[in-house]
């Protein structure tokens, strides 16, 4: 039995989770929510995490019913993410690892999302769409390495959505993306926006500039409603994501799609991806908000994978990094992808389950 505790705080969520051989024992989390119209800045986010982290750590242990002695390994997010929050979390992880005499494992945040997605859904060898406020990548595992097949060339899709939410001043509670999704359902008019797929990649900064200007012009003249803009933005950016995912699937001959990251909670995105998958005879996997959104258990799970094969991080190498590529040197070596038998666990949303048809 291997028990790993994982610490995550690279953006505005601070989460600590405990995983024992593929079973999530606890996964408490707190979110730093800013007022409408405001984003979250590094120093304030770090302050929020500093204030919450020890309480969340106590919760993680208590909910799992474990003592520090029961933990085998301490995993934490090495990167990528915002500097100050990453440091806050790393400090606590390093300190408890030393206090409890346990090895430390520095985890790539993106790989945490992917490994948790695989664990929860049982996806065998999927093309992964990783979409969040900070990242937008299409990833496949090929010849023992994670490989990025397509990505954003500027901002993440979640960043585009979050910043648009600020322009129209909608609430950030529980998240700006969630509120855009609810408003989009009430949209009646499709407003044409730039569509910027660049081969295998996508670009969102131009769409953001365009829609920010359109919002000021069209909302004041009453040409359309904020709901119409939310609807149009989602339809446009999600179509782009479906296109590049499909392109990667064609390259890999893949029959599975796994969506991870906070934007993956969006039901409209899941629906659109589901249509494409059905057309190709492929399966779509997604997780619910417990695991889509940044959480500690995903770091624990990736840490568990690394620890099992002897990959640990020396204290002197445990520095955090704001940029950390999902690529050869951050790969979990010898991870068994196609071989392992996973059963879909609790939290799996199997959209377009072929077995049912």
């Amino acid at each position, binding site marked *: 039995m291997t028990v790993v505790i994982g610490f995550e705080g690279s953006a505005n969520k601070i989460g600590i989770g405990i995983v024992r051989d593929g079973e999530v024992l606890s996964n408490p989390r707190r979110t730093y929510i800013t007022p409408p119209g405001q984003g979250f800045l590094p120093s304030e986010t770090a302050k929020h995490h500093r204030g919450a982290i020890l309480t969340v750590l106590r919760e993680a242990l208590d909910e799992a019913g474990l003592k*520090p002695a029961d933990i085998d390994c301490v995993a934490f997010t090495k990167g990528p993410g915002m500097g100050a929050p990453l440091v806050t979390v*790393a*400090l606590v992880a*390093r300190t408890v690892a030393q206090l409890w*005499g346990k090895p430390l494992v520095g985890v790539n945040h993106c790989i945490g999302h992917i490994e948790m997605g695989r664990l929860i859904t049982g996806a065998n060898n999927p093309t992964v769409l990783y979409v969040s406020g900070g990242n937008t990548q299409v990833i496949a595992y090929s010849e023992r390495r994670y490989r990025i097949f397509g990505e954003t060339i500027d901002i993440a899709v979640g960043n585009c959505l979050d910043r648009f939410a600020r322009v129209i001043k909608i609430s950030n509670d529980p998240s700006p993306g969630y509120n855009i999704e609810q408003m989009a359902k009430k949209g009646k008019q499709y407003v044409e926006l730039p569509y910027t797929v660049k081969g295998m990649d996508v670009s969102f900064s131009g769409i953001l500039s365009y829609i920010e200007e359109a919002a000021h012009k069209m909302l004041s003249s009453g040409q359309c409603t904020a709901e119409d803009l939310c609807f149009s933005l989602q339809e446009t950016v999600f179509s782009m994501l479906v296109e590049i995912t499909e392109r990667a699937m064609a390259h890999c001959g893949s029959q599975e799609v796994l969506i991870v990251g906070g934007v993956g909670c969006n039901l409209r995105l899941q629906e659109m991806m589901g249509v494409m998958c059905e057309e190709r005879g492929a399966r779509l996997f997604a997780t619910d908000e417990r695991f889509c959104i940044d959480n500690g258990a995903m770091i624990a799970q990736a840490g568990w994978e690394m620890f099992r094969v002897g990959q640990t991080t020396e*204290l002197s190498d445990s520095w955090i990094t704001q940029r950390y590529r999902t690529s050869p040197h951050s790969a979990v070596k010898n991870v068994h992808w196609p071989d392992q038998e996973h059963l879909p666990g609790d939290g799996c949303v199997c959209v377009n389950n072929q077995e049912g048809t």
Partner: protein
Amino acid sequence: MASSMGARNSVGQLQFTLEVPFPSQREASIAVQSLIPDCEPRKGGITKTLSVSANILSVKWTAEEARILRVSVGSFLDHLALVMETMDAFGRIVQQ
């Protein structure tokens, strides 16, 4: 009780030294190992050196500008406080 001292050195740089006593050498050592890995953000014009001697953690800064020195010392103290709170909350258990 922690002690500190600031001055300008022979090259006109600002210098600041902080000495923090811990209850034991082990705790001072744990603190320094937790605090050392993260580099100073590359603003330039500032250096920070950490070291441990017995149960005392020593930190020495040299900086070109007071503003940069203030930011670095301020954030270090926040980090130090967090490490100490962590040790208080989760260190005793192991010692029992």
